[in-house]
């Protein structure tokens, strides 16, 4: 194992902003992402209040800004950065590495993310307001004729910076996984979470540059003109955007699949079932997910609908293998119903709803009817919030002791879980019904005769229940850090290497490593000790 000599830091406060330790970088990114999560969540509450009151809270133009910044914040500044930041923290630890590959590059990624976020949100301070052309910056709506203010420019440059930062993080994680593993840690001994991060980073590195190119062209069109010309230009922009825009959905999914896999294995006290099949399924899944983006353009008639319908439907196969492996891991396990485990179960069930409704949207004839309706909004939020966010909360409850050295309160955690299940389903399930009835997305008002208000009010109540659950989570963190219950190195009897070091880990990660003979080295060690009596 390599050792590290460090230069002394100048001051503790400045150190956080410029530290090259992957754990500090990742922790800073998580805290910043949580601040953006609260800001994006407040925008969601404004939107829901508007729709419950049937258009009485804000103007149409402000509503456009609010939904654009809500979506942009949650995708570019919350879920994707958190997914990568958790990887940045734990992949080196799970591999027994002393450091992430390219620590300065990772730090540069953090600063790009910070600058990008500030840039996007500073649009609200401009005379014309923030960007209002949706999270995918519709062309020609985002061109200077239709969006003349500097808010749109700030959005474009902000998204470019944040995305570039994410690519840098992904490169660091990928190179660490490929080149920085400890002796004995072969590819097929890497933990499940690390494998999910490898495929996440592959998609980030090879898919995300398309977004930077698309936004570069959009910026050129706004300032120079003649770049994205007419209908063909708009279609080309969409093609470039969705080449990023679908893989990003899986970037917001795979890391949480990995977290759930680790949680299931730990809290059922079993090895992860079907490890090899899971790894192959992940790689196949990631490849397919780079070739399904055209299903976002079914109704435009400019892509090969049959091809994209085929690849989109084929996703069921690797997804089915992953679900089968989860069930196999739980089967006959000694289950411990901790908060982390409950959130993981919530992910398993609720993501299934998002996934199954995705099959409906993968069929062009059905998509023609449902495209741009609330059905799509419901599907997306079931995958990203009811799915991935549940996986993330599971991951937080699971790894918080390692992050901080303190345990979270299980009682408050379970209250957090119950409120979030109620809130998520109350908010997002009625959207399927509204979408099927024809309610379009991105509208600030709807006809009184439509009969949509009752369900909209229900959704709004659900959104406030989610907000209450997030408050309970914040309270839990504050209380647990104030009245610290020491976690110890491995409070859950988990199986992977990050639990072989202290909580929180030292700067160099490990003083010594146990022998690595499988993807669950600590379980191997425990079994060997039991056999030896």
């Amino acid at each position, binding site marked *: 194992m*390599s*050792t*590290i*000599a*460090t*230069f002394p*830091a*100048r001051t503790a406060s*400045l*150190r956080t*902003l*410029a*530290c*090259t*330790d992957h754990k500090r970088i990742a922790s800073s990114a998580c805290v910043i992402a949580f601040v953006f999560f609260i800001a994006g969540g407040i925008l969601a509450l404004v939107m829901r209040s508007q729709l419950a009151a049937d258009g009485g809270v804000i103007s149409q133009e402000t509503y456009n800004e609010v939904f654009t910044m809500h979506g942009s914040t949650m995708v570019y500044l919350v879920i994707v950065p958190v997914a990568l930041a958790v990887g940045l923290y734990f992949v080196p630890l799970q591999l027994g590495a*002393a*450091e992430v590959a390219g*620590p*300065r590059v990772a730090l*540069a990624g953090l*600063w*790009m993310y910070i*600058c*990008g976020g500030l*840039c996007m949100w500073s649009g609200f301070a401009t005379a014309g307001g923030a960007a209002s052309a949706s999270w995918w910056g519709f062309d020609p709506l985002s061109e200077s004729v239709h969006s003349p203010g*500097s808010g749109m*420019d*700030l959005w474009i*440059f902000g998204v*470019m*910076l944040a995305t570039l930062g994410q690519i840098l993080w992904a490169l660091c994680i990928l190179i660490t*996984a*490929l*080149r920085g593993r400890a*002796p004995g840690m072969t*590819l097929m001994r890497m933990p499940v979470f690390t494998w999910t991060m490898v*495929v996440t980073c*592959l998609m980030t590195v*090879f898919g995300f540059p*398309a977004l930077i190119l698309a936004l570069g062209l959009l*910026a050129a069109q*706004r*300032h120079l003109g003649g770049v994205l010309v007419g209908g063909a230009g708009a279609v*080309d922009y969409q*093609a*470039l955007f969705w*080449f990023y825009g679908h893989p990003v959905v899986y970037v917001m999914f795979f890391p949480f699949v990995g977290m759930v896999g680790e949680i299931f294995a730990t809290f059922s006290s079993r090895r992860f079932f079907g490890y090899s099949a899971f790894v192959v399924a992940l*790689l196949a899944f*990631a*490849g*397919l997910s*780079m*070739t399904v983006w*055209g299903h976002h353009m079914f109704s435009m008639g*400019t*892509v*090969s609908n*049959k*091809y994209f319908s085929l690849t989109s439907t084929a996703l069921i196969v690797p997804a089915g293998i992953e679900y089968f492996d989860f069930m196999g891991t739980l089967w006959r396990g000694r289950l411990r119903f901790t908060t982390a485990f409950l959130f993981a179960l919530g992910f398993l069930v609720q993501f299934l709803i998002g996934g199954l409704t995705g099959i409906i949207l993968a069929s062009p004839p059905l998509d023609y009817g449902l495209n741009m309706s609330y059905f799509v909004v419901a599907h997306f939020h079931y995958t990203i919030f009811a799915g991935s966010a549940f996986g993330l909360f599971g991951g937080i409850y699971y790894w918080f002791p390692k992050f901080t050295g303190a345990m979270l309160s299980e009682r408050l955690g379970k209250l957090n879980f119950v409120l979030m299940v109620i809130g998520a389903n109350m908010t997002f399930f009625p959207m399927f019904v509204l979408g099927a009835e024809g309610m379009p997305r991105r509208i600030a008002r709807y006809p009184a005769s439509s009969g949509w208000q009752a369900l909209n009010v229900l959704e709004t109540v659900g959104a406030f229940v989610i907000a209450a659950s997030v408050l309970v989570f914040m309270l839990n963190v504050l209380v647990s850090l104030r009245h610290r219950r020491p976690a110890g190195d491995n409070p859950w009897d988990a199986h992977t290497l990050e639990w072989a070091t202290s909580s929180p880990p030292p*700067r160099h990660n490990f003083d010594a490593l146990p022998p690595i003979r499988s993807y669950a080295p600590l379980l191997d060690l425990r079994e060997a000790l039991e056999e030896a009596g």
Partner: protein
Amino acid sequence: MRRRSAIVLLAWGLWLGVLTALQAVFAPKLIQFTMPALASAVCLISGLVLWIAELCTPVSERARLISDSSYATATLVVGLALALVGVGFGLWLILIGAGVSALGLGGVVREQRARGRTLHRSGQR
């Protein structure tokens, strides 16, 4: 010790290539074909480069020296961000960004030189 990690990039790039080639049956538009083909090609090339690197250079077991913090990196990125935003807001911001970037770049060079000196003193170079 040698690693065989390139197989991940090679296998995935090949799989992406197969999926891209499958499009030929469905008469794709140029852009629809080009993007995944490019991604596949870059992935395969990266895999080949890594494979050659793995053949030529075994994993280093010697001590690594890294700085605990890098103010220069943060300064460099802030400068680049200002310059980028300057594209939309005027030359004055581009120039400020370029100046801050130059400051940051100088700092990165200084950090690298300090690292080199330390390695030289410890006899690892």
